[in-house]
C-alpha cells in the first residue's frame, strides 16, 4: 500500500545532511517547529521591529537554525522590510530578552561588522534585492559567544528561557544606525539555535512512491522505485530501504524520480522516497513510503551420488563409502556444512529406497567439495546395497535427496576366519579411609598451656601435621570406583582433667588447614578444598553448643573426584579460661570421612 507521510522524515534527513555541512557555516534545516517555544514569544509583536529576518546559507538556501558555534551564524541575513530608505549598510546584533523589560531596554551587542547591500556577489535572489542584507564573515560573533556575553538565566516557563533576539539595523554614508530594525527571535537548545519567531513558512509538498513490479517479489528481482513529487518542483529524492540509502540522491525531473535495485533483502521493509526541494525558502520536503516484501528463492534440488571403494572385499574389511552432493540445476557442489549425509545398508534390497529395514551405518557432515565419506569395516559376508540420504541444514536453501539407486558392495568370505575371545575384568569397589598416626598409647600432645599476654586465658597449640611432615596430620585415601566425592569432618569431646575438672571441647580449633599433595598421585593442587574450624569465644566447662570442634561433625576438607591420596594438615589450638584448674586434660578427637 502506498502512502504519503508527513515531512518529519524529510526533516530528519535534512538534519543529517546538514550536520555534515556545518563547515559551510549553517545548517540547512526545514522548519520543524520548536517544542519549547512553540507559539509567539511574549514580547511579540515587538514595537521596534519593522520586519522579520530570513537566514540563508552560502548557496542562498533558507536556513532556520544552525550550530551555536557557527561563525558566521548564517552566510546572509536578510531583513524582510526596508528599515530606512536609502541606507546601504546593515549590521547584525544580538539581544537578550528579559521578562519585565521592553525590547528597547534589552542589552545586546554587534554580531557582525557592518556590510553593504545590495551585495553583487551574493546568490542571485539576494544580490538583486534592495532589502537590508548582512553578509556574514568568518570571525563574526557566534550565538554561543552571545550566550556567554549575555547569559540567559531564565529557567521558567514564561517564554524567555533560552531565547535571544537577532536584529538587523541599517545605516549609510553620513547616516547613523537606525533605532528600528528587522528582527527574528531564536531559541538555543543544546548546541543548536533555531528561529522561533516569525515562524518560517514553507509551501508543502507531497511525495508518493510505487514499485514496479509490485510487492511481493522473489529475492534478486529487479525492482523499480518510482517517486512522484507534487507540486513538480526541483529537488532531489533519496530512496531508502528503511534507514539505509539506496544509491545516491536522484534529481527530480517533471515531478518524477526513479531508481532500480535488485539487492533488496528477504523480508518486509518500508521503502522511502525522501524529497529535498532545491528551493528551501519556498517549499518543505516530504517523504513517500511503501511497504515491500521480498520473498526468498525456493530451495534448490540436490543430487546425492554414492560410491564405495572397493566394491568387493572380504567381510570386516574397512571400505570407504562416499557421497557427493551437487545442486541439481547446475551440478555445482554444495558448500561445506550445507547438510548431513546418512549412509544405510539395505542388504539385498536393491531398490535404492530407505525403509525401516535399512541399517544406518553412520552419519557424516558434508565437507568441502560437497563430499561426505564414511569408513566402515563391519560388513558381514554377502551383498550390501548401500544408499545415502542428504538432509540440508537449511531447508529453505536446499531440498533433501537420496541416491537414485543402491550401490552394491559385496563382502566375501575371508581366507582366515577370525577367532572370537571373551575377556572379563573386575573393578573393585575400593575403600575410603581417613587415618592419623595417633592412638591411645601415642596420643597427640598439645603441650603445656600458657597464659596469654593479657593473662586472661590459657592457650596450647601444636601443629597437626605440617608441610615438612605431612603424614603427621590427617591421611585420606580413596580407592573407590566411580569417581566419587568425599567429605572429611572432625568432632571432639570435652577435655577431662579428672576430679570433675573439664575444658569445654568448643575451645579446640583446627586452623591453617592445608592439603599436602603427593607427587604423582591422582589428587593434585586444586582437587581438595579445605576449611578452617574456628570458634567465636572461650567457653566455660558447662557451656552447651557446637562451636569449635565440638559437636558437628565439622567439615574441614572435601574433594569432588576423590580418587587418590592426600594429607591434610593444620594446627590444633586449645584455649581455656583462667578458672581452669591445673592438671592434665584429655579429649577424644574423631575424624570421619564419607
Amino acid at each position, binding site marked *: 500500500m502506498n502512502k504519503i507521510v508527513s515531512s518529519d522524515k524529510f526533516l530528519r534527513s535534512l538534519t543529517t545532511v546538514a550536520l555534515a555541512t556545518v563547515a559551510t557555516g549553517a545548517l540547512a534545516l526545514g522548519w520543524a517547529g520548536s517544542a519549547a517555544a512553540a507559539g509567539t514569544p511574549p514580547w511579540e509583536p515587538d514595537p521596534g521591529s519593522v520586519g522579520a529576518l530570513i537566514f540563508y546559507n552560502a548557496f542562498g538556501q533558507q536556513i532556520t537554525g544552525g550550530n551555536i558555534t557557527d561563525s558566521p551564524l548564517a552566510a546572509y541575513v536578510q531583513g524582510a522590510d526596508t528599515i530606512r530608505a536609502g541606507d546601504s549598510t546593515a*549590521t547584525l*546584533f544580538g539581544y537578550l530578552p528579559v521578562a519585565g523589560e521592553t525590547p528597547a531596554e534589552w*542589552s545586546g551587542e554587534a554580531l557582525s561588522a557592518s556590510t553593504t547591500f545590495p551585495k553583487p556577489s551574493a546568490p542571485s535572489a539576494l544580490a538583486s534585492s534592495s532589502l537590508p542584507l548582512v553578509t556574514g564573515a568568518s570571525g563574526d560573533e557566534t550565538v554561543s559567544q552571545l550566550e556567554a556575553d549575555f547569559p540567559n538565566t531564565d529557567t521558567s516557563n514564561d517564554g524567555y528561557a533560552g531565547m535571544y533576539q537577532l536584529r538587523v539595523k541599517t545605516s549609510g554614508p553620513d547616516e547613523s*544606525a537606525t533605532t528600528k530594525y528587522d528582527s527574528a527571535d531564536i531559541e538555543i537548545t543544546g548546541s543548536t539555535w533555531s528561529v522561533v519567531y516569525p515562524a518560517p513558512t514553507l509551501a508543502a509538498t507531497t511525495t508518493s512512491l510505487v514499485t514496479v513490479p509490485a510487492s511481493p517479489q522473489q529475492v534478486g528481482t529487479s525492482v523499480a522505485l518510482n517517486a512522484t513529487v507534487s507540486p513538480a518542483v526541483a529537488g532531489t529524492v533519496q530512496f531508502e530501504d528503511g534507514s539505509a540509502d539506496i544509491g545516491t540522491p536522484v534529481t527530480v525531473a517533471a515531478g518524477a524520480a526513479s531508481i532500480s535495485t535488485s539487492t533488496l533483502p528477504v523480508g518486509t521493509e518500508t521503502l522511502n522516497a525522501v524529497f529535498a526541494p532545491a528551493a528551501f525558502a519556498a517549499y518543505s520536503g516530504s517523504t513517500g513510503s511503501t511497504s515491500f516484501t521480498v520473498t526468498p528463492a525456493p530451495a534448490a534440488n540436490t543430487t546425492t551420488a554414492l560410491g564405495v571403494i572397493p566394491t568387493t572385499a572380504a567381510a570386516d574389511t574397512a571400505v570407504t563409502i562416499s557421497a557427493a552432493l551437487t545442486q541439481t540445476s547446475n551440478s555445482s557442489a554444495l558448500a561445506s556444512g550445507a547438510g548431513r549425509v546418512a549412509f544405510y545398508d539395505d542388504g539385498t534390497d536393491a531398490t535404492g529406497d530407505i525403509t525401516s529395514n535399512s541399517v544406518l551405518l553412520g552419519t557424516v557432515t558434508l565437507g568441502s567439495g560437497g563430499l561426505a565419506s564414511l569408513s566402515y569395516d563391519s560388513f558381514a559376508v554377502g551383498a550390501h546395497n548401500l544408499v545415502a540420504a542428504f538432509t540440508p541444514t537449511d531447508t529453505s536453501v536446499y531440498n533433501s535427496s537420496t541416491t537414485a539407486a543402491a550401490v552394491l558392495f559385496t563382502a566375501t568370505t575371508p581366507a582366515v576366519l577370525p577367532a572370537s575371545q571373551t575377556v572379563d575384568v573386575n573393578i573393585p569397589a575400593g575403600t575410603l579411609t581417613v587415618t592419623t598416626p595417633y592412638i591411645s598409647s601415642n596420643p597427640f600432645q598439645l603441650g603445656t598451656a600458657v597464659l596469654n599476654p593479657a593473662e586472661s586465658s590459657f592457650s596450647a597449640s601444636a601443629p597437626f601435621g605440617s608441610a615438612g611432615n605431612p603424614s603427621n596430620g590427617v591421611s585420606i585415601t580413596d580407592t573407590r570406583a566411580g569417581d566419587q566425592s568425599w567429605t572429611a569432618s572432625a568432632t571432639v569431646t570435652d577435655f577431662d582433667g579428672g576430679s570433675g575438672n573439664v575444658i569445654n571441647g568448643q575451645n579446640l580449633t583446627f586452623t591453617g588447614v592445608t592439603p599436602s599433595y603427593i607427587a604423582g598421585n591422582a589428587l593434585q593442587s586444586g582437587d581438595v578444598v579445605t576449611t578452617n574450624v574456628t570458634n567465636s569465644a572461650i567457653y566455660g566447662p558447662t557451656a552447651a553448643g557446637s562451636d569449635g570442634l565440638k559437636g558437628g561433625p565439622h567439615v574441614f576438607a572435601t574433594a569432588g573426584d576423590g580418587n587418590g591420596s592426600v594429607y591434610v594438615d593444620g594446627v590444633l589450638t586449645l584455649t581455656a579460661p583462667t578458672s581452669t584448674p591445673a592438671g592434665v586434660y584429655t579429649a577424644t578427637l574423631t575424624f570421619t570421612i564419607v
Partner: protein
Amino acid sequence: MKPRTTLRIGLVGLIASGLTLMTAAPAWADYAPQPGDVVGVGGDTPQFALQFGADGDYLGDAGFNAAGAYNRLVTFNATADANGRSAYAQGSTEKNPVALNPTDVLRAGTYPVQRVSSSGASLTALLADKGATEVINFIFSSSEPTSAQQTTAGSNGWGYLHVVQIGKDSVEIAADDTTNAPSGLSTAELLGIYTGEYTTWNSLPGNSSGSGNTIIPLIPPSTSSIYKTFIADLKTANGGTAPTLAASVQTVEQNDPTAVTGASSPADAIVPFSAARLNLWNDDYFHNPATSFPGSSSPLSPGVSLLTATAPDASSAYSSPINDYIIFRQSDASSTAAMEPGGARNWVETLFSNPGGSEPFFEKSAGEALIAASGVTPFYDDLGDVSSG
C-alpha cells in the same frame, strides 16, 4: 571617486585677512556621560578611531553604541573642532596665536574642565583621576606610559596601566600639494632643517637646483605623540643629542593640514603628520566648515601630501611608525561589575581586553572596520603592563 573640491581654509590665513577667530564656545553640544558610561579622552592622532568605534563612521559602519547599550562608550576628541583643527582665543594673530584651552564636560552635572588635547596630557589626566568614582575610564594614546607613570599607577592602587594596541600609524612629512620641497626628505635633512642648518630648499644636499625660498618648518605641540616621535628620531639622527630647534620652527596643531595650507608661504611649509589622518582626509571625511548646516556636500581636500619619495641625499624619505593604544587601570580589568544589565562582562572585557573570552569590540571585525575607516591600520595586541621611556 567622489568629486572633490579643493578648498583651502586656514585659520591663520583667516587671521591674516582680518577676520575674527572662532570663539571659546564648545565646538558642539557634547553628550554629558552618565555614571555608567565608559568615558575616554586622549590624543589627536587616535581620536577618530575611537570616535568612529563608539558612534560609527561616516561610511555607514555601525559603532559600539548602535547596539543601543544602556551604558554608552563616550570619547572626547583631543580637538574641540570636529575637523581636527586648533581653536584659538580672541586676540590671536598669525604671529602670536593664543591657544583657546577648550573645555569639555566629562560627566553629567560636573563643571567644564580643560579638554585633554594630547596623548601625553591624557596619561597625566588619567593618573590624576584618583577619586572614588572614575571620571576618565580610559585614554587613547599614541604613546605608551612611561615606567614612572606605571609606578604611579601602582601607587594609586590600580596595579598598573594596562595597554592594548588597536592600530598602526606612521609619522611622515606633509607638504602643500604645490610645494617647493623635494618629493622626499630624509631624517638627516630634516635634522638640518629643524635645527636651522638648512634654511632654503636649494641648500639641501643634492638639491642645489631646488627653490631658493626659505623653508617654513612647522611642528605640533610638544605634548603630542607626533612631536615626541619626530624629535626622538631627530635626536637619534643627531647622535643621541636632543636637537635644538631653530627659531624658525613654528608650533601648530598636530595633524591639521591647514597649518601648511594656511602658512604664509604654503609651498615652503612642511610638518610632521600622521599618515592615518591624511588617509582620513583623502577618504573625504572632512567637509567645508565654512558651509552652514546642513553643510557642504563636497568633501574638503587636505591640500597637503606626504613626501614619500627618495630624498635628494639618496636616503629614504622620513617615515616613523607609531601605534595607537588604549590604556586603562588594570584594576578595572578585574572588576566584577557588568557593563550592561544582564551582561557577563565588565566594560574592559566588553570593549578592549577579554583574554580567554569572546572578542572585545575593538578586536572584532566590526571594531576593526571602524578603526580602518579612521585611516589607521587595525592591529590588535593586548600588551598588558608595558612602558616606554
